[in-house]
């Protein structure tokens, strides 16, 4: 009799089933409340706000226009596991442009092929502005420019201090 009493007191049976249920519920709870983060950045730009709405006459504001054109496309490359190789006619899918790609940037009469020179020029233009805080910049990207080209220029413009950056609409393809 004392043996039975002893066993009844010491032994505790662990039931796994409710344990697993609790685990699941905790998991679901945390997964719903946590947000996943993607390592991406964003560059802000503004589009014309007043399209289609009656606009009051604005005084002429100082505007900086950055014109970008493609001088040379560069070799079309295909990415492989070991690096890149030229794109052949039988290739399909993603391609990249080689480092021999050449762009031309114009800010008013200033013209350069080099991104760093563009940045110096933009920084200078921003510093020389007539005291007004918001000088709008416009990026005029001609046909054949790709997203990467524009992001690089946008990057330099933001670094120079411009915050109000707009883009020019699409051109028909035959324009240079």
């Amino acid at each position, binding site marked *: 009799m004392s043996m039975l009493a002893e066993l009844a007191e010491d032994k505790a049976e662990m039931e796994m089933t409710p344990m697993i249920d609790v685990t699941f519920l905790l998991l679901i709870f945390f997964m719903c409340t946590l947000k*996943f983060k993607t390592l991406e950045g964003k560059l802000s730009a503004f589009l014309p706000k007043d399209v289609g709405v009656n606009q009051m006459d604005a005084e002429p504001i100082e505007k900086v226009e950055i014109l970008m054109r493609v001088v040379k496309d560069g070799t079309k490359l295909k990415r492989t596991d070991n690096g890149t190789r030229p794109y052949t006619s039988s290739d399909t899918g993603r391609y990249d442009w080689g480092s021999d790609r050449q762009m031309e940037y114009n800010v008013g009469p200033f013209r350069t092929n080099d991104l760093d020179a563009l940045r110096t020029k933009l920084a200078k233009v921003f510093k020389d502005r007539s005291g007004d805080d918001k000088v709008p910049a416009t990026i005029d990207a001609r046909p054949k420019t790709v997203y990467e080209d524009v992001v690089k220029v946008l990057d330099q413009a933001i670094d120079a201090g411009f915050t109000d950056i707009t883009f020019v609409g699409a051109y028909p*393809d035959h324009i240079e």
Partner: protein
Amino acid sequence: MNLSKHDPETEMEMNMTPMIDVVFLLIIFFMIITDMTQQDLEDLQLPMAQFAKEDKPDPEIYRPIINITFDGRIVIKREDYYVPELDDLNADPYIRVKEWLAQTAKKMEKNFIQDGATSGPMAPDEPLLIRADISTPFKHIQKIMEFCGEQGVQIWKVQLACSVPESEGPAE
């Protein structure tokens, strides 16, 4: 009779079956959840930008995302809204994109166009995120920005997605 006493603390028979079930269910949970969170983001290679702000979207605010692949396909939430060769044969190639933009503009939080106004025309005050591949011809993005400027849409804030250099951390 000697009742050999098993020490209840050290001996516990581990039943492996529920353990394996847990592992499998965990795997399935993570697979489904990861796929669902990545639905907005198409698999593209974003260009690198040093001075970009790290993307920390406010989960309360609806921010639409539009993806453009290197061959000009416009993909929203894994669905093709414009395919260059196919849709160009239609009367209005970009009709689905335009419709989506109009619907999205309706869903977005609006504000008055004139700064500081209390009445008058309104336009969406939240940004649209455009994600495009490194070699996407910029004309496709310009086209989307044109549509954003149209009467029924009027989204005037646009964000261009890029990747940030990892070693520098979040850049302001």
